[in-house]
């Protein structure tokens, strides 16, 4: 598979799908994959804990990109999980020997090419295996600048890590890909869909409502243990920036999708403006992160109210982006 080309992407799952489709002749950018799979989101789920801290997510649940791309672009994609490590190993080798490139879900912790600083127990990482060399796999990990290698034992351990979001050895690969797809109706439909999802009022933990819920939780940290409060705040930013490029990063990527979409619709002004607004919201998420990091470092009392208000402000500005997106009328 010497003609495979590794590209450095911002996010693992959208990166794998983009590289995979491009390899098979369907030229589609990472932001386009991200936008067409409705991957942007926000959720604050206090009853799901990771490392003792509540789950904060800035995008849709893992595997949603794979599944939505499959559905929305009508791509015949096969997803396989395995009951034993041996079966999972053999199947991967078999697919590679057929000349396929294969997506795989894995834990980050056991991947030997990851630096120790980044190895946490996060089971929903995605990578692309494009060849093997003896007992080593040649891997295109989208979040790495260059392609990497991983020994068989480590990759197997990573693919079969147990616990929350356990990958169960998941492999995925396209069976057939249409060489030409009219993206415009799909773009129009999903821009509308995403806006509606984010503005939805009856799910308190997701979308804009989720942001406001988190803002409330931040305000309520005031009387709590200081160390806990700092870890809680740090966790919000860590989820934002560390695990899979984060809130700001995802908003920048979605802005890039809107820009590409605008170009496809003859420089549509509504989409162009939405893209700009989304970029600004991304910058605000970064200011929010800055505010929190400063308060963690500082010896002074933390101004929980100010942090909470900043998040409310972001939620209001992000609301405006989705309202703008809803005014988009596709000339298909």
């Amino acid at each position, binding site marked *: 598979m010497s003609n495979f080309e590794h590209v*450095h*992407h*911002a996010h693992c799952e959208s990166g794998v799908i983009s590289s995979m489709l491009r390899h098979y002749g369907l030229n589609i950018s990472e*932001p386009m994959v991200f936008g067409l799979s409705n991957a942007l989101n926000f959720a604050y789920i206090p009853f799901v*804990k990771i*490392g*003792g801290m509540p789950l904060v997510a800035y995008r849709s649940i893992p595997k949603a990109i794979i599944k939505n791309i499959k559905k929305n672009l009508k791509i015949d994609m096969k997803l396989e999980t395995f009951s034993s490590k041996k079966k999972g190993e053999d199947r991967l080798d078999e697919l590679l020997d057929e000349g396929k490139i294969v997506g795989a879900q894995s834990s980050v*912790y*056991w991947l030997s090419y990851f*630096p*120790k*600083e*980044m*190895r*946490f*127990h996060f089971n929903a990482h995605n990578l692309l295996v494009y060849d093997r060399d003896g007992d080593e796999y040649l891997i295109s990990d989208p*979040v*790495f*600048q260059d392609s990497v290698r991983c020994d068989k034992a480590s990759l197997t*351990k990573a693919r079969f*890590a*147990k*616990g*929350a979001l*356990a990958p169960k050895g998941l492999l995925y690969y396209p069976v057939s890909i249409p060489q030409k797809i009219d993206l415009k109706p799909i773009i129009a439909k999903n821009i509308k869909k995403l806006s509606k999802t984010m503005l939805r009022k009856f799910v308190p933990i997701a979308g804009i409502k989720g942001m406001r819920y988190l803002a409330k939780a931040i305000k309520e940290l005031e009387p709590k243990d200081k160390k806990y409060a*700092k*870890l809680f705040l*740090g*966790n919000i*930013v*860590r989820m934002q*920036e*560390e695990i899979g*490029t984060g809130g700001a*990063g995802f908003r*920048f*990527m979605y*802005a*890039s999708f809107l*820009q590409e979409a605008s170009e496809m619709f003859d420089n549509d002004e509504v989409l162009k403006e939405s*893209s*700009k607004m989304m*970029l600004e919201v*991304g*910058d605000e998420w*970064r200011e929010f*992160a*800055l505010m*929190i*990091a400063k308060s*963690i*470092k500082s010896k002074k009392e933390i101004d929980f109210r100010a942090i909470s208000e900043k998040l409310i402000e972001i939620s209001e500005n992000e609301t405006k982006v989705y309202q703008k997106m809803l005014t988009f009328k596709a000339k298909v």
Partner: protein
Amino acid sequence: MDINSVPQDDSTTYAKMKKAIYAHDEDGKLQTVASTGWDIEEIVTQQAVDDIEDSIKDAYEEVKSGEKSPLYYHMFAARMDLLVLAQSTGFFQWTIKKHFKPTVFAKLSDKKLLEYCDVLGVSLDEIKKLPQGTK
């Protein structure tokens, strides 16, 4: 964010890695730029790493003083907590808690220990004691 504002802070938590970030050029065109790190991100990552390191250190002392079994130390050393270890092994949390007791742990069969070894990534020899030469 414009491409010139993409932070290039050489964060130690990136370990020489670079992350791709979407940013716009002078004409407003969005593209990826490789970032060597961001101080803000480093602060919160380091906070989490320090928290883990503290737990490992505390666990080491508790095992050394005989309060807890070596399993307790190895759990933290593998960056896990009780919940993750329970999910990874399939054991109940209360079962694992019992195994944190040195007297109970000493009686565990090799078969059971090997299940822990597998998810923690240590050998049968290693899991029975504290590592040499660490603090």
